[in-house]
């Protein structure tokens, strides 16, 4: 009897937690998600952020990045693009512990332009992914980092 009751409570707790998680994740669409900013490799990040999506290389995305960043703590980036109907822009740094640096949603009354400053752990590619409608485009550029900017 004791064990049965325990099992029942266990089931109840699991069920309610999963229901809570399910509803929470539905409501929190648009909220900051820890799952997006997990420590993991770039391959896994891309896989989880863009499951089964084809990300085409595009010359319509222009990145303004330094060739060499002396200080990995502050790497300036400017993104401009001539792609129509851009919905969101992702900035990723390949070898950062958390590869996803930031994601932006862009309204159509904004120019396709973003300026920001971010941190880089070491020399690697910076990848910018743009979502326009149901299509994904990417551009990448290598940045040489003299002093790493994550942790330390």
């Amino acid at each position, binding site marked *: 009897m004791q064990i049965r009751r325990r099992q029942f409570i266990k089931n109840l707790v699991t069920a309610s937690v999963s229901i809570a998680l399910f509803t929470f994740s539905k409501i929190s669409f648009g909220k900051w998600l820890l799952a997006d900013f997990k420590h993991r490799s770039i391959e896994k990040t891309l896989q989880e952020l863009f499951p089964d999506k084809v990300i085409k290389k595009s010359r319509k995305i222009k990145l303004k990045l330094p060739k060499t960043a002396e200080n990995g703590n502050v790497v300036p980036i400017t993104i401009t693009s001539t792609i129509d109907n851009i919905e969101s822009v992702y900035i990723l740094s390949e070898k950062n512990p958390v590869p996803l640096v930031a994601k932006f949603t862009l309204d159509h009354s904004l120019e396709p332009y973003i300026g920001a400053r971010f941190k880089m752990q070491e020399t690697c590619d910076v990848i910018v992914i743009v979502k326009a409608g149901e299509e994904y485009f990417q551009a990448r550029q290598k940045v040489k980092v003299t002093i790493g900017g*994550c942790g330390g």
Partner: protein
Amino acid sequence: MASRSTIKIRSKRFPEHTLVRTLIAHSMETGKRKDKDSGELIPAHFIQTLSFKHNDKLLSECHMGFGISKNPFFSFKIKQANVGDKVTISWKDNLGFSDSKDHIIQ
């Protein structure tokens, strides 16, 4: 947060667009840095969301991790903006602090 705003906003009107730049005073701690004196880890403290509004219409929402630099800087270009229009920048961090500031385009 201190009574002084953490947000600075500058705007400049050009014939084709209006450039809005913002600088936020925030430490953006990664949680991996050590205190020089005590040798203890400084807990992570970073902005998670930033929103950019033009006349109360949400134009951009940015989700970020601690990969964004200390004292974050962002810039946006609005296609059409007039003198007297209001832009609002607000942020919220992982410890629940937040700030918001209005700016009138000159």
